[in-house]
């Protein structure tokens, strides 16, 4: 049982259901990333955890105690906002000491604590500055220090990196993760960036349309996506729609095999996925799951190379590291490509896709 437990949480805004039947457990000291496209309900979920929104249904429990009805100011979960929401009329130190000051801590003690926190986020000496005199990265550190000042049981961050430029973002991701590990604080980060989630999180919760698609470690989610949506959202994937046929999958006229016989009833519509880096462009070995393809585009990114192919399975992208790739692959060339059975994942075909087919 974790520190924080959500049980069948739902949130409706009029006719719109923002969050639907979410049940999650947040283990002590872990960093969980709520990951999903914009509008998937992840921020709403975070705001409900903070107490800024009330769930339409379901319960939130902190260490076994029901806090669903507890207002935000009594939960005191520190939260870092997307735009940092620093108080412009207060100095950096006063911002960080805010929770302590209004909580009745003596002035000198609050200031000393604030200085220690500023030290922790590598901003010692900045206490007397105005927030307007800080850079984006510094403002973020102040926001983090401010939220941590009250020593919250749960630390919440809403898209904390979105206001930073790309280079700073990667640095701050690593820094925030190190800080979180050092403090051992239970943390929930909302993000739409899968790289950010993979960098920081012990556990990723992938959300879509208000529902949890999958929750698990970054590696598990990457290797074993629970749904076709997760496969497409985390990393890249080639999608192939087919029909189950006696333990194999027919995509057009091609029969594709998986490591174990497919458990779907023959004739049921399915969707296969395969990561681009798993596809092999060679004619050697057993000719299992092998088709021919015409190279339509080569995208050389330096460390890797994307080969875009037209095949009987549809358009396929294969990612090759230079030492694996065929020498001098060119547009228009016909190549053999193999989809290793162990790299294939099979899902029921989504309804919308069937309507379109």
């Amino acid at each position, binding site marked *: 049982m974790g520190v924080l437990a959500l049980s069948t949480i739902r949130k409706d805004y009029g006719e719109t259901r923002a969050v639907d039947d979410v049940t999650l457990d947040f283990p002590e000291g872990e960093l969980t990333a709520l990951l999903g496209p914009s509008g998937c309900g992840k921020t709403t979920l975070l705001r409900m955890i*903070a*107490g*800024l929104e009330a769930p339409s249904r379901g319960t939130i429990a902190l260490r076994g105690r029901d806090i669903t009805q507890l*207002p*935000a*100011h*009594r*939960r*005191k*979960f*520190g*939260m870092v*906002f*997307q*735009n940092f*929401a620093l*108080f*412009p*009329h*207060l100095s950096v130190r006063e911002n960080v000491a*805010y*929770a302590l000051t*209004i*909580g009745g801590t003596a002035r000198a003690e609050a200031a000393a604590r604030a200085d220690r926190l500023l030290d922790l986020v590598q901003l010692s000496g900045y206490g007397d500055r105005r927030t307007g005199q800080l850079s984006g990265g510094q403002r973020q550190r102040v926001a983090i220090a*401010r*939220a941590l*000042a*009250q020593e919250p049981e749960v630390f*919440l961050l809403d898209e904390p990196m979105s206001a930073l430029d790309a280079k700073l973002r990667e640095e701050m991701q690593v820094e925030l993760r190190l800080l979180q590990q050092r403090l051992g604080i239970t943390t929930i980060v909302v993000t739409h960036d899968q790289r950010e989630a993979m960098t920081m999180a012990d556990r990723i919760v992938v959300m879509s349309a208000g529902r949890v698609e999958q929750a698990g470690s970054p590696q598990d989610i990457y290797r074993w996506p629970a749904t076709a949506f997760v496969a497409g959202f985390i990393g890249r994937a080639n999608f192939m729609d087919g029909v189950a046929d006696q333990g194999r999958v027919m995509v057009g006229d091609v029969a594709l095999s998986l490591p174990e016989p497919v458990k779907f009833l023959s004739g049921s519509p399915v969707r296969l996925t395969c990561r681009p880096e798993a596809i092999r462009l060679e004619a050697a070995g057993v000719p299992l799951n092998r088709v021919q393809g015409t190279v339509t585009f080569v995208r050389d990114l330096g460390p890797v190379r994307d080969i875009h192919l037209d095949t009987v399975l549809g358009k396929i992208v294969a990612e090759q590291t230079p030492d694996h790739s065929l020498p001098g692959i060119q547009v228009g060339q016909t190549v053999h490509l193999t989809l290793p059975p162990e790299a294939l994942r099979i899902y029921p075909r989504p309804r919308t896709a069937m309507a379109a087919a």
Partner: protein
Amino acid sequence: MSVVGHPEPAMAESPRKARADAVQAADDRGALGHRFLRAGVTTLIWCVVLFLCVVPLGLVVAISFGHKVEGAGWEWAFTFENYYRFLVGANWPAETTFLYLTQLYWSMRYAVVASVLAVATALPFTYLLTRQSRRAQARWLVFLLTSLSLSEVFIVMGWDIILSNNSGLPVLFSASGLTDWMKATGWFDVLRDWGLASPRNVKFKTSEFATVLTMSYLVWPYAVILLYPALSRLDPSMAEAARTMGARPWTVARTVILPAVRLPLMGTALLLFVFLLGGYVAVTVFADPAKQTTAVSVFEHVRGSTLNAPFGAAQSVILLVTAAAFLVLGQRLSRRSEGAS
């Protein structure tokens, strides 16, 4: 290129020098004409401003030093007798009266209380308004702007009816039994102490309460409209951040929202104060005769029974100086608080 057009620096750099020079000369002539035209327009604007603003004001100041001829009009002079009269009475030094200073005191008192009341009530309203949907906000603002088109006389008449002893709230109070209830519970005596009741029933005319209420009602829409931009720019996540750090709603208001809108708040109060300092209709209708204001006295001396234009002018000048002093003081205060924070 047209002759009267703006000079274009790029042409001067042309390698075809002769042609460029000719164009340059034409440009110079054009620029000269243009400059004359602009100087002319500027002078004209200044003349209009001078005539419309400075001349009337200058006249009032000049007349305030004039001399009133008993039983007749007034004549140009340079005497301080009107100012003496305002500060210490006409018969000074034989006898000292502070009648007019008292009137100035009431002017300031009504204006301060009414403007503070308007701002204090408009602030929470406007804050909640900015948290509504865009549609609701637009509707409220249009409604408030429309109410600004009502004249002061119209509004005061409305309140006059509401507060009058024979047709307004007092009648409702006694008819509904509220008066009897208040008499039974002792609240009636409290109202009598505040001067809001006669021995028989509640009474709002004449009273300071009615004067201030009507004056603050008059400027309330202005307060909302002046506070709206600052409050709608206020980032809602600041208040939310404070809440997640343990701030109760009142603490959020005190430590986050109020400091963030401190300057617009002071500016609005100051503007309403200056506006209300010259308030006339509400005071004449609702204020006790002993608690009339300088503005009312000015009107009486200029157009009313006494016909003493120099003294009216002197009172106007003093009212103006008072307003200016408050504006300067407010400016100082806001600059100091800006520097301190």
